[in-house]
């Protein structure tokens, strides 16, 4: 009988440590893979060292931004390509992605990297001109075009993703961070109101890929890393993370935060006076207002998880007077057969 127990334990251990497929890493059921602590330390250091990459220029008018989630890109980049096209056509100030951007295979990340570079090329082509010295200037500022000395590399493509759980399986953090660098950061969008008052809308990006913030991230949040307003008043706070806070329905059993961390986060969002919190992960749409915070959980925009055209993106309209509106944005791409 003891032999049976030993065999059973051995089989379970083997199943948990050896069996794997392209999408999931079963050993992760019990044991840590890429640690959130290390990701946050790396991300925070990168954020501090390359702060300019996270700067958004002052906005003098209404603006919009686009949100997508769970693209799970493999060999077909159609939906990601469509998201960038929708953003560019809609004139969005920035695009965000809520994680699980690609399944973790080197080939998929090569495709993703090419796609992001192509999207930046189209973005620069549409929004920037080249002056007589060969430098880039923003279209609309032709009067001062010759004063600009921006190179292509100095133009930041305003695509801001957070990391998801599928981004870190099979040591995927190495692939993800090679392209996007940081999973924990914030940036302000400065808005000059009609009354001439300077206000700040802040965008906070959290690393929730492991279903927990981890101690380092909690410490940084509690130390006020994301509270540095330098005396300005925050008008809106938008928070982006992968793991969903609320279950879209009782039948959704995707792993979420533990009980205490759920309450910690709900309390933190309230303290931040968050306007909208965006989540993904569970591949189901959910919208609700809780404690005066709007929570939007986005459906997967992946052509495999959501093969039919549908409203997978969200566009937020931020008016100069501070009013907010959001709408779901339709995607038409259908995978080639």
């Amino acid at each position, binding site marked *: 009988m003891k032999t*049976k127990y030993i065999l059973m334990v051995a089989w379970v251990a083997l199943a948990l440590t050896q069996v794997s497929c392209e999408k999931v890493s079963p050993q*992760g*059921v019990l044991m840590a*893979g890429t640690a959130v602590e290390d990701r946050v330390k790396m991300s925070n250091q990168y954020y501090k060292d390359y702060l300019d990459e996270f700067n958004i220029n002052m906005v003098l008018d209404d603006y919009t931004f686009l949100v997508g989630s769970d693209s799970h890109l493999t060999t077909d980049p159609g939906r990601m390509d469509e998201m960038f096209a929708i953003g560019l056509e809609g004139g969005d100030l920035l695009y965000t992605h809520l994680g699980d951007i690609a399944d973790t295979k080197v080939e998929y990340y090569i495709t993703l990297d090419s796609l992001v570079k192509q999207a930046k090329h189209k973005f620069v082509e549409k929004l920037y001109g080249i002056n007589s010295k060969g430098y880039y200037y923003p279209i609309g500022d032709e009067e001062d075009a010759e004063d600009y000395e921006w190179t292509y590399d100095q133009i930041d493509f305003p695509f801001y993703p957070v990391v998801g759980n599928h981004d870190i399986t099979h040591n995927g953090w190495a692939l993800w961070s090679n392209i996007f660098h940081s999973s924990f950061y914030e940036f302000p969008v400065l808005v000059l109101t009609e009354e001439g008052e300077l206000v700040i809308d802040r965008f906070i990006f959290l690393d929730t*890929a492991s279903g927990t*913030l981890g101690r380092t991230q909690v410490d940084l949040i509690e130390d006020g890393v994301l509270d540095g307003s330098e005396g300005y008043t925050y008008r809106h706070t938008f928070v982006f993370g992968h793991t969903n806070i609320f279950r879209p329905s009782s039948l959704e059993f995707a792993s979420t935060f533990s009980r205490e961390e759920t309450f910690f986060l709900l309390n933190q969002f309230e303290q931040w006076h968050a306007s909208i919190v965006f989540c993904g992960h569970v591949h189901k749409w959910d919208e609700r207002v809780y404690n005066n915070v709007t929570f939007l959980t986005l459906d997967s925009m992946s052509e495999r998880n959501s093969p039919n055209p549908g409203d997978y993106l969200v566009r937020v309209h931020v008016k100069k007077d501070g009013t907010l509106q959001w709408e779901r944005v339709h995607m038409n791409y259908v995978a080639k057969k």
Partner: protein
Amino acid sequence: MTKKFFLFLFIASSLVSIGYGQNSYIPYKTYDGEHKNEISGYVTVGNNVITDVFGGLSMSYQHHLTPRWHVGGDVQAQFVKQLFSVDIQGGYRLPVKYGNVYFDGKLLYNRYQKWGFNEYIANLSATWESAYVDLCIGESLIHYRTNRNSTSRSYGVTEPLTLTFGFGVNARHRSNPWNVGLFFRNYDDFYYENWNINWGIRWYARVRERWNLFGEFNIRPAGSMSQLATKYEGSVKLGLKYKM
């Protein structure tokens, strides 16, 4: 993969139990025919991602109304988490060929004072307990709401369907005066998770006729079951049970 895993656990645990009769079986919660009341308490010390080091005290009381029916209650106070809990519970024991099946109900209130939330839980479960293996399956209805904000938008959130599952295995036959085993479940004495598991080592030892020492080493990862599990909480419980 998850479905296959649970199917395997179910089949394996069923197979290894065959061959053990009831005659030498001393179930965990069964009335011993002499001591109708049981009182126990334990100390918890641990480390948690959100609160760092924490600790707490818990007390339990169980009364055997008959050899089949039992009722009881538990309280806990965790000081760094500022978590205060109280529950009442009751159940029925149904003897079966390879052990007992317990049908239990529990009403639990948690006050997460640090973050300003009240949580109310109703749980129903069935636990099959054999000489070496125990399996639990149940359902929890969870409702939580903030206790700090009374605006119209601070309504509660209800999760009416939350699966409860647990699996435990003992190294020795349950009739032995001491034992050590492993457990794997998505709940603990004072919480029920949606899907996250906790797992670890449990043990007990009879120190005197009426006194039992018991303990647990509990690993509570975040992001388990569908993500890469990461450290969330580790804790140690050490307790004493007295039969009256």
